[in-house]
């Protein structure tokens, strides 16, 4: 497919996803509320383990950890789960026939995912502020924080696509394959700073892409020193992101090959 045709396809897909977001506006708002409520549950759950006198400082770690997790999990779940809908609706065959990219179509689900994540994060900030008080989001460097948060979204998009390809291979919905993603919240250094992890987990976290971007988010937002230093985290983050991308690419070749050879199979409901 030439670049011109690819861009035209991308434009059509962007139009579709935006149109869809407006068409299903109540669903989108509902989704944002869901993000907020789950964030609140995790934040309050963590506070239940800490003495009330320490809630001020703990809530900073908790808020940024849960926010990073939301920006990781929402696109991952959305893209990973949408492949089920994509196949049920017969969209696989349609895209296959016209030679349009399945991955591009699926990855554009980040549009509603980011909108929902934004609604959820702002509401969660307000809720935590109302519950704990004090300044939770210090915003030491707002622009850098935004850049690192977007980096997390990019990593989550690649991981979501990887889950979609795995769904095609195993006929299991993405979220069910997503156990590793949930574990990464803890052992991948998203929710908990890498320095606070036990030795074995710390080593594991350093090999995952999310930990580096999350460390950088904590550094730029609340001034927590990154475990590998700023440049070390940037370099390690880039390397691991490339590794994740290559893995997704290899699984994609296998999944598409399998689907084209044996036909597409429905994906089970959760």
């Amino acid at each position: 497919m030439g670049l011109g045709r690819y861009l035209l396809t991308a434009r059509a897909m962007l139009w579709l996803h935006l149109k869809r977001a407006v068409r299903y506006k109540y669903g989108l708002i509902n989704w944002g509320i869901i993000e907020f409520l789950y964030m609140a549950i995790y934040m309050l759950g963590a506070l239940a383990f800490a003495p009330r006198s320490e809630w001020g400082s703990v809530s900073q770690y908790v808020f940024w950890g849960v926010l990073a997790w939301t920006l990781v999990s929402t696109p991952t779940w959305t893209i990973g789960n949408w492949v089920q809908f994509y196949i049920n609706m017969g969209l696989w065959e349609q895209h296959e026939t016209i030679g349009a990219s399945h991955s591009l179509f699926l990855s554009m689900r980040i549009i509603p995912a980011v909108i929902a994540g934004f609604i959820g994060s702002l509401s969660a900030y307000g809720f935590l502020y109302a519950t704990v008080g004090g300044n939770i989001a210090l915003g030491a460097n707002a622009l850098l924080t935004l850049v690192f948060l977007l980096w997390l979204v990019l990593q989550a998009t690649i991981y979501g696509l990887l889950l979609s390809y795995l769904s095609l291979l195993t006929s299991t919905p993405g979220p069910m394959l997503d156990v590793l993603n949930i574990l990464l919240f803890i052992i991948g250094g998203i929710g908990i700073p890498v320095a606070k992890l036990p030795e074995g987990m710390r080593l594991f976290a350093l090999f995952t892409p999310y930990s580096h971007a999350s460390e950088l988010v904590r550094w730029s937002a609340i001034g927590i020193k990154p475990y590998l230093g700023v440049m070390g985290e940037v370099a390690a983050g880039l390397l691991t992101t490339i590794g994740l991308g290559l893995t997704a690419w290899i699984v994609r070749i296998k999944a598409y090959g399998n689907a084209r050879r044996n036909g597409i199979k429905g994906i089970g409901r959760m």
Partner: protein
Amino acid sequence: MTSIRNIMSAEIRAQFYWLKNNKVMMVMTLLWPYLMVFIMISFGSAFGSLEEFKEKMGVASPILYLFAGSAVATASISVIDNAAGVATWHRWLGTLPYVLLVPRRFVTYLLVSSLVTSLVQVTFNLASIAPAVVVLEGASAGFQLLLVLGFMFIGTLPLLGIALLGGIASLLASEESDIINFLNPLILLLSGVFYPVKILPWILEQASYYIPTKYVVDAAKLAATYTYPPGSTVIIILYALVLLAVLYNVIGVSSTIYAERELRRRGVR
């Protein structure tokens, strides 16, 4: 006309074959409560301690409570997702017009199929944690888990009433998914599974008394504290659950009857 027994039997078979034919899905379903416990303990302990949690929740055995609480949370999510999602699932597949037009009432089909699916899921969720609970807390904890299972069965009834509202609201609004799906995490938030409800803002704390899962969580706390829970507390919990079951099912069923009439009149969109 399709008998209620046929609907029940079909749902049990469907559940069985979903899991039998998809082993990965079955394993993941079994793992969810363990993951929740792991995440809450790890996340909380990084910034505090289990002792602090034990004191705040007022339970003797925090591990048993966390396992039971997580299973209750997972079960609660399953009940709402299944019951609210069945109608939109049929619309996705294009089978909703047929389901609406069969002689058996739509509301009967929704209630019976959702109840069966929910009871199977609840049993599955609670059974999944039984090995861990017995190994960590001893055989007697297994019996306490049965108490929680019993309460969760009763707690399923009011949850079904709430779920019906979610499902039909999505159909009437012609949305692709359950538009009041936020009820699921809202119910969890107000139930205080992982924290005492008294740390919630006042208005949310008051709202928690109208949430069925809160009473099942209270039962899990009793199970994690007493070998023989006090009878008076058990009766209060039962009373609250039955009251909420009547309230939510009257609202849920009447709304579904209205929705059924509307959908037959204007068609499925």
